[in-house]
């Protein structure tokens, strides 16, 4: 196969994947509003995803806050702008770093977990067993997980943002003797509702994307146990790519909106 053939086949595979993912998303919206609703399973998934990611997301957020402040502090001092550190860190974390880093961590932690779990259920015929017992496996397994990620990722991002700011404050307090009140007054005065709203809305999209890709990869897992690994791995890779695309589109739309 020549280069042209390789590109053609790659493009074809990509378009097929996009089409299948779109159909899968369409089925989610169709099934999500149909009875019966699996509330118990939805709450169980929310608990699992939130509770099990809490420590990882919290530690990562705290370290990001610490490192970001430590790295930027010398340069800001050199420019005589050390008073702007809380504002700069606050805006960066709330608008971009908090949502995207937390979403990427959750794509690895939650997305791969969903891909592997549903994948192993597929290859051991557990999904077929649900179907033949008259249960709708899409509704029970997929709808509940996508809804849970859509709800839990924004909550985890909010928590991560708060912990990152706490980490940043700790450095400012140790190195610059900045008080808690002064630090957070600076952060609050520089943040507007316009900073907060778009970044929160995009975290719902991030959560939806992580759940959607994880479920899609696991639900259609093929080729036995080897396929489970592939499903988990590709769930992380494709969800991460999709997160960056969504982030870019969200920032672009926000920018256009502000220009108006």
């Amino acid at each position, binding site marked *: 196969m020549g280069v042209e053939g390789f590109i053609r086949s790659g493009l074809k595979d990509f378009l097929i994947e996009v089409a299948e993912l779109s159909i899968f998303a369409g089925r989610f919206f169709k099934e999500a509003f149909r009875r*019966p609703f699996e509330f118990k399973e939805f709450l169980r998934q929310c608990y699992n995803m939130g509770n099990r990611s809490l420590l990882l997301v919290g530690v990562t957020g705290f370290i990001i806050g610490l490192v970001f402040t430590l790295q930027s502090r010398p340069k800001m001092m050199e420019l005589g702008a050390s008073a702007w550190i809380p504002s700069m860190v606050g805006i960066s974390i709330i608008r971009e770093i908090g949502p995207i880093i937390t979403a990427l961590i959750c794509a690895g932690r939650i997305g791969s977990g969903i891909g592997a779990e549903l994948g192993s*259920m597929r290859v*051991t*015929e*557990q999904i*077929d*067993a*649900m*179907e*033949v*017992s*008259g*249960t*709708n496996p899409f509704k029970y397994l997929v709808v509940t997980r996508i809804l849970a990620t859509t709800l839990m990722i924004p909550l985890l991002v909010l928590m991560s943002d708060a912990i990152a700011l706490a980490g940043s404050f700790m450095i400012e307090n140790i190195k610059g003797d900045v008080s808690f009140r002064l630090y957070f007054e600076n952060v609050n005065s520089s943040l507007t509702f316009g900073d907060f709203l778009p970044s929160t809305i995009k975290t719902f999209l991030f959560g939806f994307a992580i759940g959607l890709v994880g479920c899609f990869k696991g639900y259609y897992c093929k080729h036995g146990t080897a396929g489970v690994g592939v499903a988990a791995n590709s769930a992380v890779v494709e969800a991460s790519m999709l997160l960056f695309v969504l982030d870019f589109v969200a920032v672009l739309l926000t920018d256009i909106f502000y220009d108006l």
Partner: protein
Amino acid sequence: MIAGYMDKKPVIEITGLTKSFGSHQVLNGFNMKLYESETLVIMGKSGSGKSIMIKCLIGLETHDSGTITIMNKNLDKVNEDEMMDLRTEVGFLFQGSALYDSMTVRENLEFPLRRHTKKFGNIEDATSLVMEVLKSVGLEQAIDLMPEELSGGMKRRIALARTLILRPKIILYDEPTTGLDPITSKEIVLLMKSIQQEYKTSSIVITHDVDCARFIADRMILLVDGINYAEGTFSELFSSEDPKVKAFFKS
């Protein structure tokens, strides 16, 4: 038609069933009838289309052409809700048991029960129903175990209990004794026979196990190249002079 079936109603009827994967034709006009309270064994070499046929029957695979009628309902004409209701009447025992590995035995058994409120109502406490089917398969003590704590034979029994809890009128068995030692296989076959007598179910058994077929079959079909090549009782097929039938039993 075999004598004795003239007066019975077919609960499943398959006519001219075809299924292919790309250029590979798996089922090539398969015909079959399953009668009330009958145990029909379908045998055939690997790749002869047995498992695909049974998956088409339960709607896990779509067929290319032909008709499948289960309890007077044509599968091509039922809607999604009717199909879900029909599935409570047709149990399926998977080759690998397919127990939900994140749930205990009790939860595995309660899971289908709680989703069929139309048939069973809102069940507050399903323990008595769960215990009843566990007693049928002789595993009452396993109620709070996880699937990973069960042996292969126990898993197969629990899977059978999960099938029975919906009180199906028909049970489909996909290789029920595959992967089990001879003693456990015999126990499973005896269990299938006793369940058939206790619950008065009609059954289709897909198997390679000649001993299982000999013991359980009221009637047999030999599937060759996607068609029902030979049909009769076990002894009729076993003593057949047809070279393909002979070759199958010799292998």
